[in-house]
């Protein structure tokens, strides 16, 4: 009896020690862009797009598992593997796309910072420069690891969306019915919304991030089981938070016919419908999510671009040793923050184009990944099982199909 308990605690110990890659990736996933997409989708379509979270969840798990397996077996980053096996041209296309998309993503994160702080009455001309400088300072002064842990703790507060959702008094029966029988008209708007939700849940840059953090943790095949649990927990957290954000917005905004463009609008609109507290919780969640992603995203992007093109990279390097890396990192941060400070900046089209690029990039990255993970020379005995390939290729075909459908619908309207 006691022996059993001890071994349970031992196992828990091992799990806690390797915990991280999946859960952090999952938390970063629900960034400002994600929260915006979920709230806008729910405000327009009510409960009728919640079902998209189920296929997203399955694909997310399958993809992250492949990333983790590749990281464990090869000890190499995804950027390295793509460069070594797909050559310069493909790498160049992917990373130019990734750079532009992440610049857009970073802008969206700062929009989240600005928007959430405005709910609390702080002007964006104060909040954005302060937060931007703090993030830059935090990373360049080498306290990034600590920051990551604090943010991880804070990201538990994303579960506050559950409270926010319940305060909106949702109709649970209706939610169930719309997951099984969604009432949805097929048109440009709804398809682009579906692509948006999938694109924000499975962002291309996350694949690179996931694989690097697995390597950094020095995980081994022996710990594979725990890594898998970590991934599943992270994916569940992502989808649960997304679910409650959609419920919160659907049961209040949609039922009252309120239309929104930004996550901030959702927070403001919640005020008269669900009370001050619900509104503030929503804004606080947005703030934490934005600042967390704004820290990780520019850093990760600069790192992968340098990795792929063979420049020195890493926050442990000095400025002179890794000039390209620091210039890129600082550049992304400054441009992202500066765009927000321009009066009347076209934020809606920036976030739209970011999602389009993300959506175009995702199938390319996924195809590279599946080819890599099936390559016996790279993966040895740990190549994909048929089930991974079916889900992976299925997801690629569906994504390309959706993008093509969107294009065709747009052409004929």
């Amino acid at each position, binding site marked *: 009896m006691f022996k059993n308990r001890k071994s349970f605690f031992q196992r828990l110990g091992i799990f806690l020690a390797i915990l991280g890659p999946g859960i952090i990736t999952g938390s970063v996933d629900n960034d400002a862009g994600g929260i915006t997409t979920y709230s806008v989708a729910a405000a327009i379509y009510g409960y009728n797009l919640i079902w998209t979270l189920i296929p997203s969840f399955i694909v997310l798990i399958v993809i992250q598992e492949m990333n983790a397996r590749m990281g464990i*077996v*090869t*000890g*190499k980053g995804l950027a*390295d593997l793509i*460069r*070594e096996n797909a*050559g*310069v*041209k493909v790498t*160049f296309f992917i990373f130019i796309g990734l750079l532009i998309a992440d610049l857009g993503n970073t802008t969206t994160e700062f929009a989240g910072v600005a928007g959430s702080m405005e709910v609390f009455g702080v002007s964006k001309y104060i909040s954005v420069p302060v937060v931007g400088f703090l993030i830059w300072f935090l990373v360049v002064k*080498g*306290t990034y690891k*600590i920051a990551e842990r604090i943010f991880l703790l804070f990201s538990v507060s994303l579960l506050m969306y559950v409270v926010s959702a319940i305060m909106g008094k949702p109709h649970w029966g209706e939610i169930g019915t719309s997951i099984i029988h969604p009432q949805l008209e097929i048109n440009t708007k709804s398809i682009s919304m579906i692509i948006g939700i999938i694109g924000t849940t499975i962002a291309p840059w996350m694949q690179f991030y996931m694989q690097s953090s697995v390597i950094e943790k*020095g995980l*081994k095949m022996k710990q594979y089981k725990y890594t898998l649990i970590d991934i599943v927990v992270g994916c569940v957290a992502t989808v649960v938070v997304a679910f409650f954000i959609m419920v919160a917005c659907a049961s209040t905004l949609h039922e009252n016919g309120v239309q929104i463009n930004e996550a901030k609008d959702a927070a403001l609109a919640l005020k008269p419908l669900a009370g001050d507290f619900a509104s503030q919780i929503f804004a606080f969640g947005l703030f934490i999510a934005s600042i967390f992603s704004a820290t990780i995203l520019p850093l990760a992007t600069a790192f992968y671009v340098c990795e792929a*093109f*063979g420049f*020195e990279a890493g926050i442990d390097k000095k400025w002179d040793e890794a000039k390209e890396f620091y210039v890129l990192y600082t550049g992304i941060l400054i441009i992202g923050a500066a765009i927000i400070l321009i009066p009347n900046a076209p934020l809606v089209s920036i976030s739209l184009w970011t999602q389009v690029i993300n959506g175009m990039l995702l199938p390319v990255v996924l195809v590279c990944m599946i080819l890599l993970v099936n390559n016996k*020379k790279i993966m040895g005995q740990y190549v994909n099982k048929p089930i991974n390939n079916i889900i992976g290729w299925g997801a690629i075909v569906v994504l390309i199909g959706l993008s093509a459908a969107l294009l065709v619908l747009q052409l004929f309207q």
Partner: protein
Amino acid sequence: MTSITTFYLSRVIGQKAYDSRNKCIGIVKDLLVDRDSSAHSSGHPVVNGIKIKHDKLIAFYSFQNFHIEKINGKTKVICDQLTELSPENISNNMYLVEAVLDNQIVDLNGRKLVRVNDVRLVTITNDTFAVAVDIGIEGLLRRIGIAKPMKFAFSIFGSAIPSKFILWEDVETIDYSNLNIKLSKSYAKLQTLHPSDLADIIEDLGRKASAELFSALDEEQAADVLEELEVETQVHIIESLSIEKAADVLDLMPADEVADILDALGDEKVELLLNEMEKDTSQEVRELLDYPNHEVGSIMSTEVMSFNRHKTVEDVLAELRAKKPEAESLYNLFVINKKDVLIATFSLRDLVISAPEMTIDKIMKPSPVRLYDDQEVDEIAEFISKYNMLAIPVVDRNEVLQGMVVIDDVIDDLMNKRRMNK
């Protein structure tokens, strides 16, 4: 007549190759060079073969009858006579595209890994050599196919695209294409690197390549490098080696370092390794492994030089010459009585400046600062800063000398702690 033609690998790969009657014989896929670059007197690897694809068929030909011509800035591959390479000739070579291009190689001067964007080759009369690797931005643009327009654009503003080359003699390639076949490749050039630099490079390599590179090191160097690696990499390397080879490397390392590595391995593996290691080394390691991790005994070094107080300076020097201890045990010398109880210390300086016939009890400093083997590791830092010592003797509760703690052994722990608190 000597003709010199220089060209880039990227300019010939994917190009059509022609015979002397200007008929296409296929598409160039890869160039094969000597695996061992020191084989040729120039120190540069000679291009021996060429891989050509024609109608979905892949063939390897000798490069002897091929030559590269530049016509109006275009590079053309021409062959006078096709001679197929025999399979054993192929296997003696390294593939430039598969093993070098886009892969990481070791830059010996910069002591780090760099990624190859292109390879520069030169033909001098009949031989073609790989002379340098291109790791600069110009190489990247050339591969993407926009180097020339970009160069033109830059020249308008009177500047040039930054280009960066490393000569072949200053790099060591890691042959990724043969990692599974385990053809032996000597990494002779890596001998010149400091073990710490080599350890950093190994940590940056992928799993297979790091294991391959490590197993190519000789045992002495392997032991030095293993000591410098991070724990995760140490475990990965030990697990990738055969038990015999791993034991041989561990035999050459100080017992306390070995104990640290074994601590991170699975119990079964530890037992196998200890049984395979030499008796006296494994005995010391076992004793260290018995200490819990938080106690001083677990990190102490057991290789200490201790002497009887009645010995003369000359005796001690003779003994040191015979035993040839490592530097750290040489600088810190201890005096013990018949029951091995620690009574004093003396330094190498004291020894060297004293007359040969002087006895040790005349030069020793009695009642030394010491740690107990069951004391907490955390207390070492205080001792070191308080007494300004580079090494502190460790005794058990009966005052019997067990080993010593050297500042090197605790500095990593201390630095980690500071980083955590930052």
